[in-house]
C-alpha cells in the first residue's frame, strides 16, 4: 500500500535518513501518482538534501494536484519558492512567493510568516544579482577577479561531482564539501569587493537603515506595513499577533481589533524603494 510506504518514509525522515525517506516516497508515488502529500513530503525531504531541481518538480506537481486556488497548496508554493532561490532564479521565486503570501494572508493560513520571510529573501537575491552586475560594470578589474573566483569554484565543484559519480565520496560528504566550497567563494568575493570599495575613493556607502522603516515589534525592515488607529505603522505579522491577543493599540492601549488596521502604502513604497537600492538591509 502506498500510504504504508509514506508512513515508513516519515519515520526515516524523523530519524534524519533523508535519502532513505526520499526513496520510500518515490516508491509511494510510483504506486499512486495522484496523492499530493507524497509529493509535498518528498519536496520537504529534498529541501533537506538541497536537491532543488527535484523540489521544484515535486512542489509544482503537488500544487497542480491540490489546485492553484486551494489553501493546501500554500505550503508547496513555499517549497517551490525556496527551490527557485536555490536554483538561482530569484525573480521567479519572488513572484511565486508574493502571490502565495497574499493568498495566505487572505486565508489566514499559518504559512504567512514563512512566506513573508521568503519574499524578503527573494528580494535580497534579486538585489544581489543586480548589485553584482552593477559593480562589475563599474569596474572591469573587479569583474575579472570575480570571474576568476567563480571559474575556480566551478572547477572545484565539477571535481567534487566527479568524485561522487565514481563513488569516492558519499552523498553527505558531497553536500558538506559543496557547501564549504560555495561559502569560501562567497567569502572571497566579499573580500575582493570590500578591497575595491575601499580603493574607490569614498564611494563606500554607510549601511544604516532609517528608524522609520523599522518595525517596532520585530525590529526588522517592514515589508507589509499597516497603521494602527493612533498613527504608528507596524509590519503586519507582528502587530496582528499582538492585537489578536491583547485587543488594544500598542501605543495608547485603546481597544481595537485587527479590522482597524489599515495598509500604509506610502510607507510600503518607501520600504520597497530602500530595499531595491540596499539589498543588504534584508539581513540587517
Amino acid at each position, binding site marked *: 500500500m502506498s500510504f504504508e510506504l509514506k508512513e515508513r518514509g516519515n519515520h526515516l525522515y524523523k530519524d534524519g535518513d533523508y535519502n532513505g525517506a526520499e526513496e520510500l516516497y518515490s516508491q509511494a508515488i510510483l504506486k499512486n501518482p495522484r496523492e499530493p502529500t507524497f509529493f509535498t513530503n518528498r519536496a520537504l525531504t529534498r529541501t533537506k538534501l538541497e536537491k532543488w531541481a527535484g523540489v521544484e518538480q515535486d512542489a509544482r506537481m503537488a500544487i497542480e494536484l491540490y489546485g492553484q486556488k486551494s489553501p493546501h497548496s500554500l505550503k508547496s508554493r513555499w517549497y517551490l519558492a525556496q527551490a527557485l532561490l536555490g536554483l538561482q532564479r530569484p525573480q521567479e521565486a519572488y513572484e511565486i512567493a508574493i502571490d502565495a503570501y497574499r493568498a495566505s494572508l487572505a486565508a489566514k493560513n499559518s504559512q504567512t510568516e514563512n512566506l513573508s520571510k521568503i519574499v524578503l529573501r527573494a528580494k535580497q537575491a534579486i538585489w544581489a544579482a543586480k548589485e553584482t552586475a552593477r559593480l562589475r560594470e563599474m569596474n572591469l578589474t573587479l569583474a575579472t577577479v570575480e570571474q576568476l573566483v567563480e571559474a575556480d569554484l566551478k572547477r572545484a565543484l565539477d571535481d567534487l561531482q566527479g568524485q561522487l559519480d565514481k563513488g569516492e565520496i558519499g552523498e553527505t560528504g558531497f553536500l558538506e564539501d559543496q557547501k564549504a566550497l560555495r561559502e569560501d567563494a562567497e567569502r572571497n568575493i566579499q573580500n575582493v569587493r570590500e578591497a575595491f570599495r575601499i580603493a574607490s575613493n569614498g564611494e563606500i556607502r554607510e549601511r544604516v537603515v532609517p528608524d522609520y522603516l523599522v518595525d*517596532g*515589534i*520585530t*525590529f*526588522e525592515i517592514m515589508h507589509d506595513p499597516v497603521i494602527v488607529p493612533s498613527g*504608528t505603522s507596524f509590519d503586519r*505579522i*507582528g502587530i496582528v*499577533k*499582538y492585537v489578536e*491577543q*491583547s485587543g488594544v493599540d*500598542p*501605543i495608547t*492601549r485603546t481597544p481595537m481589533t485587527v479590522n482597524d488596521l489599515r495598509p500604509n502604502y506610502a510607507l510600503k513604497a518607501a520600504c520597497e524603494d530602500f530595499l531595491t537600492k540596499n539589498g543588504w538591509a534584508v539581513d540587517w
Partner: protein
Amino acid sequence: MFASKRLSKELIKMQEHLPPGISIVKSENLEEWQMDIKVLDDNPLYRDETYRLKFTFGSKYPIEPPEVQFIEVPSTESAPESKRPIPIHPHIYSNGIICLDLLSSAGWSPVQTVESVCMSIQSMLTANSRNERPPGDSDFVSYNRRRPRDINFLYDDDNV
C-alpha cells in the same frame, strides 16, 4: 516567532549605546539576561547602590512581556562592591518581585524594550521617597508561588 532575532537586535543596539546608569551584566543566551541599574539623582534611599535585574524571555517575546525581577547578589570578601541588594520600594517585594503595570500581560506593549523597561524601573525608584515594602510583604514572600506576570496586582496607587 521572532524573539531571538528581535533580542539580538536589541543587544546590538544596547552594545552601541546605553543610557546612563544602565549596564549589561549577562546576555550570552537569548532566554535570560541580567542588567545592572543605578539611580542617578541624590535620592538617599538608593544612593551609591547598584541593583541587578533579571529578564526572562519566552518564545513569544515581544508579543508577551518578559519576566523581570530584582535579584540579590551577596558581596564577597574580595569584592565588597559586587553586592546587589533588593531596593526598598512600596511596589517591590523583598524577594525581588516588582509590581509594575507595564510588566503585566495587560499593561505590556511590544514597543517596550529591555532598555525602556530598565529606564521605567529607574524612574520608578527615582520618584519614590517612602522607605517601605508593599503591604503584606512577608506573607506574599512566604506564600506566593505564582509567576509575577500571573499575579493580579492592584495598580491603583499612582503616587509612587
